[in-house]
Structures are given as structure tokens and as C-alpha cells.
């Protein structure tokens, strides 16, 4: 069980953060748990390929992304097409200021309203603290794509927050 001992020490401590990412993507507890279980089973089987000293969480996230992509394909859902979302992002005219009052709900709702590729890079960078290089590895995209998605994703997020904030203010003024 030597391999298991290393796996237990290196990989298993990331289970909670992996679940959080899976849960964010799936929005369904059972689906997220299933996805994380399958990710860890596959990680165990290919643990000999993990390079010690590198970021194990990034490696696990890469496996999770593969497992999820395969499942989406199996369900005949079309895979995420980055170019379409990048085109949408290009239409963001300017970056609005960030509202002073930010609740957890505001932030999570605004993030959830973004196209998934932007959500992924923002969560992996700002929440999971992965480097651009590790995000590129986890998502199988060039590092330049990570940077452009982050830039556009954050701009979209701010627009979304500003829109939600303005809508809230209008509702407040409408009150008698």
C-alpha cells in the first residue's frame, strides 16, 4: 500500500476544495459527489504519472475537467466552445466600478451568470489560488487564453455586479 500512502498524503487532502469546484460547476450535490469520486478513482489509477513537487490540486483539477468533459459528451451535450464566449466578452464596452456593498449572494449570482469558461478561470485563479500556468494545465488551454479569459471574465463580472446593483437601487426607489 505504498502508493496508497503517498496518494492519501498528496491527493486526498484536496477532496474538499475539489468538491467545492465540482459543486460550483454542477450546481447539484449528487452530481458533484459523483464527479469527485470518479476523479479520485482515476487519479489513483494514474498516480504514478503525477510528478512529485508539482501542484497536486492542479493535477486533480485537470482530471476532474477530463471526467466532466467525457460525461458531458456522453450525455450528448456539446462541449464548451471558448471562441463563442470570447466573442461575447469582446462586446463588453467598458469596465464599470465595483459596488461598495458586496454580499456573498451578489458575488456568487453575478459569477454564475457568466459563461462557464470565465467562471472556471476566475474560480481557479481567485478562489483556488492556482498560477496561470497551473490553470492552463488544468484546463488544457494556452496560458494566453487563461489571461484573456481572466481579463474578460472579470470585466463581465463587474458589469454583472453593476447591473444587479443598479436594478436593486431602482427597486429601492420604487418603494412607497
Amino acid at each position, binding site marked *: *500500500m505504498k*502508493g*496508497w500512502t503517498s*496518494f*492519501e498524503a498528496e491527493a*486526498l487532502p484536496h*477532496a*474538499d476544495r475539489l*468538491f*467545492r469546484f465540482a*459543486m*460550483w460547476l454542477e450546481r447539484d450535490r449528487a452530481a458533484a*459527489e459523483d464527479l*469527485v*469520486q470518479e476523479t*479520485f*478513482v482515476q487519479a*489513483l*489509477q494514474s498516480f504514478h504519472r503525477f510528478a512529485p513537487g508539482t501542484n497536486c490540486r492542479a493535477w486533480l483539477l485537470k482530471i476532474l475537467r477530463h471526467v466532466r468533459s467525457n460525461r458531458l459528451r456522453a450525455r450528448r451535450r456539446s462541449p464548451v466552445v471558448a471562441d463563442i464566449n470570447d466573442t461575447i466578452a469582446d462586446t463588453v464596452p467598458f469596465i464599470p*466600478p*465595483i459596488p461598495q456593498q*458586496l454580499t*456573498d*449572494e451578489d*458575488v*456568487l449570482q453575478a*459569477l454564475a451568470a457568466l459563461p462557464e469558461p470565465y467562471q472556471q478561470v*476566475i*474560480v481557479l*485563479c*481567485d*478562489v483556488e489560488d492556482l*498560477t*496561470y500556468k497551473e490553470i492552463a494545465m488544468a484546463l488544457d488551454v494556452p496560458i494566453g487564453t487563461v*489571461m484573456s479569459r*481572466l*481579463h474578460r471574465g*472579470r470585466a463581465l*463580472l*463587474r458589469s454583472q*455586479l453593476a447591473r444587479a446593483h443598479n436594478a436593486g437601487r431602482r427597486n429601492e426607489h420604487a418603494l412607497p
Partner: protein
Amino acid sequence: MHCRELLALADSYLADQLLVETNHAILRHLAECPQCRAEIEDRRRLRDALRGAFQRSATLQPSSEFLAAVGDRTRSIAGRRDAGRSWRAALAIAAALILVATSFALQAWLSARRVAELTRAAAGDHRDCALQFRLSEQPISLEEAARRFDPVYRRFATVNPDAGRVKGPLTVVARHSCVFQGRRFAHIVLSYHDQLVSVLVPVDSPALTSEIRTVDRERVIGFPTGRFTTFVVSAIAAEDLERVADAMRDPLSRALAGA
């Protein structure tokens, strides 16, 4: 650094993805530019808000039962896999042992076959050369054999039995090199109590690993002598043949030492 450049690098700066020199340039600019400072603070606030929202969201947290189940399942799979590996390793070891045992058995069988063949050839040479003089190829002198085949034949020219080990006269009747069924021997013919005894050394064959005793129409004793095998063949009584073999053992060993 200008404001436009700083805004392009702001996210990378907050993610700590820039070189030290670039960070220093940004810090210098921020010290002098309140607008950029405010923008950086805004972005940092959004980043912290995101991180905090994820950490505080109860929906996004895994249950402790689930985390335990992940550990249990992977441990169970690892256990089954290791058990499978142990079986495969045991099977591989067993197969290797069988292979080694088979190889040893085959070598022993080949060695036994070679010894039996040599013994038969020595007995045949004694019969056809020493007793009946009916070899198809005439014997040649040891000197000629040394010249034509191997200088070691010359060493048999001076080997004499140790008379102290036998009861009665043991004399050399002839010495030569002869061939029986394609195998060439150094052949010393002895006379012991009026019976002929052959001392035969197949120079091109390796030494036996142990002594042999066989009885057919002639008795044969085989023993290693240096890197060669010596066969002593005769129809005399077994104990007499043992004595003759003993009488030849040391002189042969001395003569062939270093050969």
C-alpha cells in the same frame, strides 16, 4: 509606468504572477496615482469577496461523510490492486523458479547423457584398440598427436603408474593416441596380472564433476583430472580396477597440472 499599462497588469499583479521588477514598477506608480490605487483596491475587494463567498457558502461545502467515503473507496481500490499485484508477483516468481529448475534438470540430463556417451566410447576404445586391434583408424604416437592436435598429448608420454598402490606388477604396455567412433583419446595400455587395463583421456572433453563407476562387459571408473576426464577400463575385478585407478590418479594429475 502609465495608468493604462498598470490597468492591463492589475489582475496579474493581484494574482502575484508578475516579475519582481514589474511589481516594483507598479508599486512606484501606485504610490503616486490615487486613481490606480483605488482601482487596485476595488479589484482586490472583489477578489476577496469572491474567495470569502466560496468559503462561507454552505452549499459548496462537502459533507464529512462524503469526504470519508472518498477515502474509503480509494483505499479499497488500492488494496484490491495491491492484492492483484501480489498475486501476479507470486506467479512470476513461481514461473521463474520452474524455469530455473527445468534448466537445471535439463543441464543434469545433458551432462548425464554426455558422461554415458564418453563412458561407452572409452569402453569401446578399450575393446577395439587394446584387446582386439580392430580400430578403423590406426593409432598414432603421442608426439604426432601433440603436433597435429594438442600439445597436451605429449604429457602422457612420461606418465607411469604409482606401483606402491597395487598388489603385483603394473606395467605400461603401450602409449598412443587413437580414435573410437570419431572421439580421440590419449591411451595408455597397462598390464596387471596378465590382464589389460586401458587408461583413456578424451582430450577434447571437459572434466566430470564427480567420479563414476559403471559395469557393462568392461568395468569403467571415471574421475576428473585437472580439466580433463580420465577413464580406467578393464574386465579385472572391481577392487583391482580401483587400485589401478588410484595408481594412475596422482601421476596423471601431476602430468596434466596447468594444462
